[in-house]
């Protein structure tokens, strides 16, 4: 039997606000436990939540970036359950009316584009953390994270493979970091994915029963978890078992998913509108202000790069894969580099070296204007491409400018026709056999002669000039 995989994602993105969603405490990560827990965060008797408008603004940014509907009036609700790291005994979230509804994200798998529809995105607060190490036979509670603003982004079940799910998660990750609403740090839990997976016989209309894999915090684990889960579900069904709706966890050590709770154990969260918070009202002016401040989005920028710089679609897509790379590219071109050469250099040498050194382009030792100068020296014939690569290496290590290195190491390309002619005459005299071969019709011999000339000039001769003079001399 042919099986079709159906995947939908719920992604919790931590919004990068200074203070928490309902209190003034800092949201900084990694401080001493409970040093960022105010009366409101630890839910002392009598305290009340106050909405942080910065979190709402980030939700609006996201909604606009995916072309969604921003609800002019959305409602905060209480999701009631007991857990030690949930101080109020309920989480403030949005239930019936979320702040963002609908919207789309385009993903690319192989050379296929696919549009994924989003269901909604809603604001809510994060819980604290239970700490089990360090406490013998007891649990510690750290409430620093309690109340950190989250935007939970829910997709339609429109992905049909692990690859599509990963592509979607990566596209969202890139988008939220691009527009600056989330730092995207997955190790610190700023971007956490819950994946709903089901399988059905190919061609069947109804969805199969889904299981939800909770809290995946790396794309690698997500891929492993989905692949394992899909295989497990298919085997279960083929063995004659029914899939039971459940929540599962992925164990990276065993590479397997295991059940956390079944549907029967599912909580009744007893949602109801939070009487402490009036409806969240967002007016047209607010939306328009956010829209006007929204940065150019990757798709738009990609199209602009193609038309403005005349570079191929592939280059434009690669250069807009992060905001830092895009601005590096634009700065390089703005400093006088040829658009296509700049693209080649950034996608080639620069990216390769950064990858090797695991550095981000924002921290590149060779700044955009320094790279532009190097490219200009290739463009104006001061050095050739091969020499330029060596110069870049030296720039990378020493931080000197291209001109300084060319000057110091005497790398300036020989363009003096007299000098080049003298070298060519010498080479021709020393390689009479090759000249004969060429004259008898062997084109290859010409390239060999060019190579000899370049060698004789220690790489400094202008290759185009060598070509031209050599051709003339050989008649």
């Amino acid at each position, binding site marked *: 039997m042919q099986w079709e995989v159906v995947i939908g994602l719920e992604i919790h993105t931590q919004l990068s606000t200074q203070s928490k969603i309902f209190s003034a405490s800092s949201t900084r990560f990694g401080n001493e436990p409970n040093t960022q827990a105010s009366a409101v965060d630890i839910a002392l*008797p*009598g305290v*009340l939540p106050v909405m942080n408008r910065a979190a709402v603004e980030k939700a609006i940014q996201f909604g606009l970036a995916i072309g969604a509907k921003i609800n002019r009036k959305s409602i905060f609700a*209480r999701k009631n359950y*007991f857990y*030690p790291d949930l101080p109020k*005994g309920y989480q403030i979230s949005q239930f019936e009316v979320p702040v963002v509804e609908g919207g789309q994200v385009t993903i690319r798998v192989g050379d296929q584009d696919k549009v994924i529809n989003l269901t909604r995105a809603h604001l809510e607060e994060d819980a604290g953390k239970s700490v089990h190490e360090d406490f013998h036979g007891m649990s510690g509670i750290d409430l620093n994270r309690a109340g950190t603003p989250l935007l939970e982004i829910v997709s339609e079940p429109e992905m049909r493979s692990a690859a599509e799910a990963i592509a979607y998660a990566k596209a969202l990750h890139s988008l939220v970091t691009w527009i600056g609403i989330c730092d995207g740090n997955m190790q610190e839990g700023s971007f956490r994915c819950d994946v709903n997976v089901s399988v059905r016989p190919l061609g069947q209309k109804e969805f199969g029963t889904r299981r939800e894999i909770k809290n995946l915090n790396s794309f690698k684990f997500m891929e492993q978890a989905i692949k394992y889960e899909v295989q497990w579900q298919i085997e279960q069904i083929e063995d004659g078992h029914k899939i039971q709706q459940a929540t599962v966890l992925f164990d990276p050590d065993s590479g397997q998913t295991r059940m956390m709770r079944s549907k029967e154990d599912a909580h009744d969260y007893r949602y*109801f509108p939070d009487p402490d918070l009036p409806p969240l009202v967002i007016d047209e002016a607010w939306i328009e202000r956010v829209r006007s401040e929204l940065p150019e989005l990757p798709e738009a920028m990609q199209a602009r790069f193609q038309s403005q710089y005349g570079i191929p679609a592939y280059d434009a897509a690669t250069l807009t894969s992060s905001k830092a790379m895009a601005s590096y590219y634009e700065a390089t071109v703005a400093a006088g580099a040829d658009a296509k050469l700049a693209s080649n250099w950034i996608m080639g040498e620069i990216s390769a070296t950064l990858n090797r050194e695991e550095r981000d382009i924002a921290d590149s030792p060779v700044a955009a204007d320094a790279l532009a100068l190097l490219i200009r020296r290739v463009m104006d014939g001061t050095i050739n491409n091969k020499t330029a690569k060596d110069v870049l290496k030296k720039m990378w290590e020493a931080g000197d400018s291209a001109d300084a290195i060319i000057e110091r190491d005497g790398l300036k390309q020989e363009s003096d026709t007299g000098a080049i002619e003298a070298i060519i005459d010498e080479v021709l005299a020393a390689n009479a056999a090759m000249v004969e071969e060429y004259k008898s019709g062997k084109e290859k011999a010409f390239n060999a002669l060019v190579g000899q000339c370049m060698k004789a000039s220690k790489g400094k001769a202008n290759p185009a000039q060598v070509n031209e003079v050599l051709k003339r001399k050989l008649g």
Partner: protein
Amino acid sequence: MTYTLKQAADLLAAGKTSAVELASDYLARIEAAQGALNAFITVDRELTLAMARKADASRAAGNAGLLTGVPIAHKDIFCAEGWKTTCGSKMLEHFVSPYDAGVVERCTAAGLVTLGRTNMDEFAMGSSNENSAYGAVRNPWDRDAVPGGSSGGSAAAVAARLAPAATATDTGGSIRQPAAFCGVTGLKPTYGVVSRYGMVAYASSLDQGGPIAQTAEDCALMLNVMAGHDVRDSTSLEMAKEDYSRDLNQPLKGLRIGMPREYFGAGLAADVAAAIESALAEYRKLGAEVVEISLPRTELAIPAYYVIAPAEASSNLSRFDGVRYGHRSQNYEAYFEEHNKEAKEEKEKVTLLEAMYETSRAEGFGWEVKRRILTGAYVLSHGYYDAYYLKAQKVRRLLSEDFQAGFGQCDLIAAPAAPTVAWNLGEKGDDPIAMYLADIYTLGVNLAGLPGIAHPVGFGANGRPVGLQLIGNYFSEARLLNAAHQFQQATDWHTRAPAL
């Protein structure tokens, strides 16, 4: 010697007494009456005198405000830094608040001196003050009678002249009904006028703080201190500062008082009806016109309230889990062992954590609180939400519409505060429904978010006080205080004090 708030303020201003002297006198009265009335949960002489000394010092330095050095009592529901804040519950028996409620902050800033923390029904749930983990409060007019609830301690303290005034809260009548039962004046402001920050939440969409005092004038002075926008409470209204005493001396000529016929039918005791009738006659004498109106859906207020309030309470009280503060059972490990040994099926078993929650909450909460948490969890649960919670919210809107229609025909609405005078202690202890039904005249005001005042208008059976309730439209506090003040200028019910 005891005083109204205004008298105490005048004496202090004239230099005829000091804050320390006043506080000491009242502390002595509180101590003497505590055995008989149990109106206070916590008294802390040192904290009180420290505040009084500070008040005297700031008066000496020329920095006194109108009420600097005047002593008052706080209902034990308002968090106050350094004070035990129990909310009438064993759950918070040892909870000393690390912060001040908005109301407490404002009172302290005004120089008011805290005499102590008044008794109350646990988490403000009750109409008789019998649901306190610290024992029932007795009615100063008749110690066999309840003082009303949930602000029974505040009302009893003011009635027995143990404090010139007290803060209180009203979720379904908890200011107006005990004020009526104890023969004092109590004002429940428009929802959002007084900050709920630091006021332990019972039912957030209904809770509202307000004053209880001997006179309407004192209530106005207290509200001037208590009211005001608080950014820490998102339901607090952004309004310009008001002087609630500005209209006290306006004549009542032309005031239209509506009498809703649904409030004066079967179920209203004859003694209460008679006292209210003569009070309305007094209002006519003062120039008011009494017109009959209708609030047709009045009786729906009871089921609507007893769905919405428990629903919110069940969630509000979830934070009392024994994890961070409050009562944590010593017996949860034993319960865990025993319970799981007796469990017949795997799914009956509890985790150690669940055992801790269950025992802590079982021991920390009283019966009425548990009843309301269970009711609330039920009406919010999957499959019942629409039938109960959503339906109750619709009823709530209809009740508000009824009031608005009523205010089309009158300026203020007159009503009893309760169907009877104070009942006997223990009388309704086994019958929560009977107790709930007695809230019929006060619940609508909370559901609609309106202001209401109760003031004494005479005595009924067994010499127990009767109170009249006046209900105004939104933000008509000054008007309500004006009416009650004019009534009190013409009568002396509010000056009567029980013999201690």
